């Protein structure tokens, strides 16, 4: 009987990586090489026009090269962080090559059309000179996203539970949800700016709608699919309706809820930028539009990278939350 337990533990996915070389991390050395190449090309070759931050970019990549050089001998002593670094070794090499190629094609040779393609040092220049405005924009976007997403998923989740649990609620609510659900949130823009007192409120509503609807639909489906025997068991054990909803229906449907949350997260990003492009005074969406109008493409790319990092970070965060809450699922999936 304990053999079965040991079996399931073996499958729990504990893998140990053996470092390829105990002493020297070869990919780290290569990465140091490609990053040094970038630094040398940036510093050694003249710029076609002034992009700014030439020396700074050379220094940054040189520091990067130095870090990889140090890591190549110390990485084996860094434990799990070291293992992660070793895993991404080839990426660091290619990243150095990519920076070098990008820098040479744009800043040094000027082969790519000029206002549209900015060299990496141009992006760095933006971060150095326009960081305060970028930070304000991130804060504004964060506020809009936070208010919209969290109010959206809260209402979506509560509505979804009600729809999945109560027949009467489902009778009236389901047709409405099926009608409204497939309409892209951005299609509501003309009405929302008329209905809501300010563009800010309208934007919050759009983000909330985009993130709330998939959560509502999947939560309702999840609650509806809960194995009836779970309810029977809980009822014979003396559970009331409250217990059945909060301790049986909701935990049982949580895997579905998270599918809805991931969908809602992606939709919220999509509608966020659109919402900010309409009449907002600050925010990453506004920053993109404003700088496109002035052909400041380095700023556009700089903002895009920030946006990509924030979105990817939020998705990662949701994965962490899911793994915490759905740890009991391991082995089922």
């Amino acid at each position, binding site marked *: 009987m304990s053999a079965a337990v040991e079996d399931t533990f073996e499958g729990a996915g504990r893998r140990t990586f053996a470092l390829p070389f105990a002493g020297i991390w070869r990919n780290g050395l290569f990465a140091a090489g490609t990053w040094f190449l970038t630094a040398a090309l940036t510093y050694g070759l003249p710029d076609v026009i002034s992009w700014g931050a030439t020396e700074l970019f050379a220094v940054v990549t040189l520091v990067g090269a130095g870090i990889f050089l140090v890591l190549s001998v110390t990485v084996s002593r860094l434990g799990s962080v070291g293992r992660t670094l070793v895993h991404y070794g080839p990426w660091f090499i290619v990243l150095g090559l990519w920076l070098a190629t990008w820098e040479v094609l744009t800043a040094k040779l000027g082969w790519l059309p000029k206002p549209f393609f900015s060299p990496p040092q141009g992006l760095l220049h933006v971060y150095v000179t326009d960081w305060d405005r970028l930070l304000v924009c991130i804060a504004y976007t964060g506020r809009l996203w936070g208010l919209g997403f969290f109010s959206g998923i809260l209402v979506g989740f509560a509505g979804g539970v009600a729809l999945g649990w109560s027949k009467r609620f489902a009778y009236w609510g389901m047709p409405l949800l099926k009608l409204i659900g497939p309409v892209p949130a951005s299609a509501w823009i003309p009405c929302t700016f008329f209905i809501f007192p300010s563009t800010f409120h309208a934007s919050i509503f759009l983000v909330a709608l985009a993130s709330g609807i998939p959560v509502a639909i999947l939560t309702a489906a999840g609650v509806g699919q809960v194995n009836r*025997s779970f309810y*029977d068991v809980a009822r*014979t054990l003396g*559970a009331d309706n409250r217990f059945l909803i909060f301790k049986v229906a909701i*935990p049982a449907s949580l895997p579905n809820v998270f599918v809805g949350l991931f969908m809602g997260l992606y939709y919220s990003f999509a509608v966020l930028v659109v919402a900010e492009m309409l009449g907002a005074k600050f925010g990453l969406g506004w920053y993109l539009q404003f700088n496109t109008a002035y052909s400041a493409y380095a700023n556009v790319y700089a903002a895009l990278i920030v946006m990509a990092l924030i979105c990817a970070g939020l998705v990662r965060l949701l994965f962490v939350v899911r793994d915490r809450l759905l740890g009991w699922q391991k082995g089922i999936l």
Partner: protein
Amino acid sequence: MALALAETNAAGSIALDVEGVSHRYESGGRDLQVLDDVSLTIAPGEFVALLGPSGCGKSTLLRLAAGLEKATRGRVLEDGKPITGPNPDRILVFQDATLFPWRTVRANIATGLEARGLLTALEHRIDEVLKLVKLEGFSDFYPHQLSGGMAQRAALARALVNDPKLLLLDEPFGKLDSLTRLRMQNELLDLWKSTGFTALLVTHDVEEALLLADRVIVLSDRPASIIAQVRVDRHHPRRRDDAGLVALRRALLEKLGISHDV
């Protein structure tokens, strides 16, 4: 609270009376009668097995006794009082362990106490039943980490922690391998002897019924009605090859429409 528990322990078991119960389901416009005028009386502390072909409506009888459904006609009584709804005094154990997969073994067992707000007062009971079903070392395991037999023992513990006076067992060992099943049958017998609840076991395994029960009731094919009752007057532990039991087994199989060559 401990006092109250001691009192209920003293009471221990209840009598179950089924009076002229007929039951029908309506599904998809089709009317399906599953029970036809079933009457039986079970004394407090008795172990009764319901034997019958699969799908004959045995499980329905358990659901009625558990209070999960109301009989279309007739009455089901506990100690003379009609059963109106589910109550932790009467607990159903299913063929599948149906442990809540998001709860650890301990939390699963705690469900009944938690639902009735008795968790803080009776938490020590959890450790007691864990020991009773020999799962002491597994209280923090999730159901997917348990083998079939362990899961079923956890399900039994989840029922027993509530001190049920009537345990309704719906083919509880039906999905276990034959060795585990033999062991679990003995464990169930020990639990019954030590705790003294009334037991109503649904099974289609003639041997299981004869090994465990004081009385075996044979039900017909759907709609189920009682076609035979056999009292098993043998002391525990019983042996499978006991001549009397073998004769009973042959008689019961015949009642179920299976010829003697089996």
